[in-house]
């Protein structure tokens, strides 16, 4: 896995869909439109100063869209979660295409809060959308409807809008059906411009539950940004080493006492830069989080990215951004069918290079296969027992009678029933804990419940262990059988997961690979208990150590439907607990 960021493994990106024709058009966005955007920005600044409510804001956006003659409306929504309700208002407008029947659409969106975090407002992003609406409707090029969405807050606004648009309203969301509807949305751009001006445009692409958009979209955007806008694209907000010649040392993780020739080595800088991208990618994908508002689109088969204006002192502003967005829309407008030609499984190591699935998948699959073989080996071992009997061999020629040992291998039964009951019981325990975590009571008395759950899950297995049948010499010890089935199941989970969400599979391979394979019984009680405690911490320690993560994972599950939290509770933690039980069983 450490090899993933090596530049040699990556290959250059290319555009696979011929219909896209990126950066082949003359753009019309001009300084007049920049002025419109500036005016919108002043109005928005006024709104921010006056501290308008979400409803008043949405109404203002709706008025702005209506003034342009677009079919505009607002949407009010309320999410119910275990921590209370969340509500807000979205504004949106549909521009029907002058050239087609409106069966297909693309979306330009901006959210009220920015990806940058710390409460940064996406004021300039919204002004861009408003002025683009005014600008785009003057042209008759569009073969697809264009939908402008200004969503409330950061994520949940757009989530409510998309669910209402597609008629998949979950039970905890209350909202009215949308007033204006267009066709099937194919692609979407989300604009995030929170700073004063920018030097690079960053692309965020991870979606919910590890989904990624088709790579053609990112590659076309990179072309357009380079050739039409004349400014470089970056992955996330990480600037390339070449852009940071003198400031690289501030970014580097290498401590300052390392020799200068190492710190300045271009290969190492490249490696570090790519590793930073990969780590960030895995951080988003493994937890099933999306890196921006665009990530909500992917679940509806809409390819979407966030264009993030990396805050800087200059030199670019509305002019470059408008041109690039216009040109990207023209490219998206060229599509004849859904994006399908290019890759859906990739790791973007730098703006121009990526890793194909064939290059990174083996890293997780190898671990999984190793675990599978270890499990099968344990299974075979469990079936045979070595009996050492002393036989005196009477050598014909030799005088001394040397007692020799004779090994016979005898096979024994491998009763699986108690093992399977143990495994099912741990998973049921996981389900119970998960339901508790999602309940309102947990949220109210967090300080009481966290240690209580931890104590319960670590105490229940040792308490119930004496109920299992005792080991007898004729049958294989249940700890070996449990270890074997545990390894086989974990290996299956990893290899299946690697297709759905590679980063999560890689994380599982890291956390479960070695610990599960080395779980073993020990002769001394203390060692066994210590080992068991270590497995307990590995399985459930996050409850205590990472309270914020727990909170955000549960919020993601309840509002956005990210299955990372249930997966950890119901699959990951029980598997590690089974390894812990293997240690305990040996000692009893």
């Amino acid at each position, binding site marked *: 896995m450490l090899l993933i960021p090596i530049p040699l493994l990556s290959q250059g990106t290319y555009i696979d869909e011929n219909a896209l024709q990126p950066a082949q058009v003359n753009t019309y966005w001009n300084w007049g439109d920049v002025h419109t955007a500036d005016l919108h920005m002043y109005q928005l600044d006024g709104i921010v100063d006056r501290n308008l409510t979400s409803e008043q804001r949405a109404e203002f956006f709706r008025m702005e869209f209506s003034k342009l003659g677009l079919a505009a409306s607002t949407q009010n929504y309320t999410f119910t979660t275990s921590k209370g309700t969340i509500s807000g208002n979205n504004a949106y407008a549909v521009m029907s295409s002058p050239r087609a029947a409106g069966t297909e659409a693309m979306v330009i969106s901006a959210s009220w809060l920015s990806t940058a975090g710390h409460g940064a407002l996406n004021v300039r992003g919204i002004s861009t959308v408003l002025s683009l609406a005014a600008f785009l409707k003057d042209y008759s090029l569009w073969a697809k409807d264009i939908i402008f969405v200004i969503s409330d807050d950061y994520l949940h606004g757009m989530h409510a809008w998309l669910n209402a648009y597609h008629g998949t309203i979950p039970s905890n969301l209350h909202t009215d059906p949308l007033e204006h509807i267009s066709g099937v949305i194919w692609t979407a751009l989300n604009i995030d411009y929170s700073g004063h001006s920018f030097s690079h445009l960053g692309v965020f692409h991870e979606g919910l539950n590890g*989904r990624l958009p088709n790579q053609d979209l990112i590659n076309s955007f990179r072309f357009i940004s380079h050739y039409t806008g004349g400014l470089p694209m970056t992955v996330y907000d990480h600037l390339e080493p070449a852009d940071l010649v003198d400031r690289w040392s501030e970014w580097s993780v290498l401590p300052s006492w390392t020799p200068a020739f190492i710190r300045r080595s271009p290969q190492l800088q490249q490696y570090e830069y790519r590793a930073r991208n990969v780590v960030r990618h895995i951080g988003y994908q493994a937890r099933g989080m999306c890196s921006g508002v665009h990530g909500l689109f992917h679940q509806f*088969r809409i390819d979407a990215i966030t264009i993030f204006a990396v805050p800087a002192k200059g030199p670019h502003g509305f002019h470059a951004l408008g041109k690039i967005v216009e040109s990207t829309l023209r490219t998206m407008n060229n599509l004849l069918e859904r994006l399908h030609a290019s890759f859906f499984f990739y790791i973007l190591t730098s703006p121009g290079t990526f890793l194909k699935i064939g290059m990174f998948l083996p890293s997780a699959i190898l671990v999984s296969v190793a675990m599978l073989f270890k499990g099968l080996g344990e299974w075979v071992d469990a079936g045979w027992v070595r009996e050492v009997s002393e036989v005196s061999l009477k050598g014909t020629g030799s005088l001394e009678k040397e007692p020799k040992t004779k090994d016979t291998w005898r*096979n024994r039964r491998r009763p699986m029933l108690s093992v399977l009951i143990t495994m099912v019981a741990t998973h049921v325990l996981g389900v119970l804990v998960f339901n508790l975590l999602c309940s309102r009571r947990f949220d109210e008395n967090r300080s009481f419940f966290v240690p209580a759950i931890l104590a319960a899950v670590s105490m229940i297995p040792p308490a119930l262990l004496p109920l299992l049948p005792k080991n007898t010499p004729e049958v294989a010890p249940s700890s070996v059988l449990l270890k074997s089935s545990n390894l086989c199941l974990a290996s*299956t989970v990893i290899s*299946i997961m690697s297709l759905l969400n590679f980063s999560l599979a890689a994380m599982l391979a890291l956390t479960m690979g070695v610990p599960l394979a080395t779980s073993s019984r020990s002769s001394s009680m203390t060692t066994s208990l210590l080992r068991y405690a270590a497995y307990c911490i590995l399985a459930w320690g996050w409850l205590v150590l990472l309270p914020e993560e727990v909170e955000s994972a549960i919020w993601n599950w309840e509002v956005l439907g990210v299955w990372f939290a249930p997966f950890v509770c119901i699959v990951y933690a029980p598997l590690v607990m089974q390894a812990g039980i293997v240690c305990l069983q040996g000692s009893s």
Partner: protein
Amino acid sequence: MDEGTVLPVLVCFRLLLAVLPLPGQHILKHDHQINSPLTSYLRLKEGLWMLDNNVDPYMGGSFHHSPLLLSVFSTILPPIPIIWAVSDAVGAWALLRIWRARQGLSLHRATTSTAESLIVSAYILNPYLLFPSLALSTSTFENSFTLLTLMFASEGKPSSALLAIAFTINLSPYSILLLLPILMLLVTSPASQLASPRPFHGSINRIASLFGEFMLYWLVLVGAACIIADGSWSWMKASWGASLTLPDLTPNPGLWWYFFTEMFDHFRPFFLMVFSVHLVIYILPVCIKFQHDPLYAAFLLIGVLGTFKAYLTLADPGLFLSMISLFPEVHGYLRHPIVTTLLHLHAALLLPLQHILWVSEGRGNANFYYAASLVMGMAGGAGLVDACWAGMRIALGDVKVESEGKGQVARWEVARWEVAQE
């Protein structure tokens, strides 16, 4: 739990599942792993609707079920979930009777042993059989009829057995593979002869006369089907022909559809012939090799169907897996049961996953799903080869103690629950 109550309890459980409004049943009915165009409930409904509206169901090319099912569901009963539950119960009961006949036990014993409750639960709780049945796929009826045939044949009731196989063949023409072992079973005994092979000792003349009887029943059923289908022969092409000419290339866990999607049209007839003949080829070798134990031969041929037939659904390998519990004497001789189990586990997880990636998320493509169906094929093949091996190996004598039998049954059954957990 008392051993004797397992069958009633499980049957009640199954009936309860049929009555309760389960979430996700709608998804199951559309699932390609458990419904093929030949067995799908939705297509059955479509055919019934067309019949009600005086349209010939076999005209449009979307309806492939047998006219017998059409007549039953249009006149006697509406297709309600209870029927599927009852069919499952009948299947489990038949499996139990086959077991008793094979072990030479009294057919109406009041007490049951652990092995018997395992056999019943292996049928009713097998996810490969339970899910198709919950999805109201007609493969449930095919499986029950197959088991009924084997049951009558084991109990030495020639007429009932031949009538049942005639029904089975009418529902699914591939069951013709089972005809020869069933005729052989009728003239010999179902008791296990695997450990002591001997030449076939039944009377060949009797087989011929039984075959004549079968032809009679079969022709009567064909005639009945023609009358139901308004005196036309078009149903034959639409329902039986579909298995041979593969008109509908809807993906399924089998090995045919992808091959014929990719093929140039002018090779199609040739390869259709090759694929169909490939299935028939197995009949004679299996029946000659296992002439001493025709029930085992029938079991192996069911395994062949569960791996290689066109329009495979999970119910076909499911029947093979559930029938493994009938032969505890060979379990000790299986070489790689855990590998087969793991392959099935992987296949059962990969098939729906790749299907979702391809069809609903659009991130994958047909090759993804085909790869998963190859894993399924490997799992089926591994199980089949292993069963063949064990059936022949047992004759050479023992490496393992006889008393292991029961423990092995238990081990095998519970190993398969892993599949149930997914």
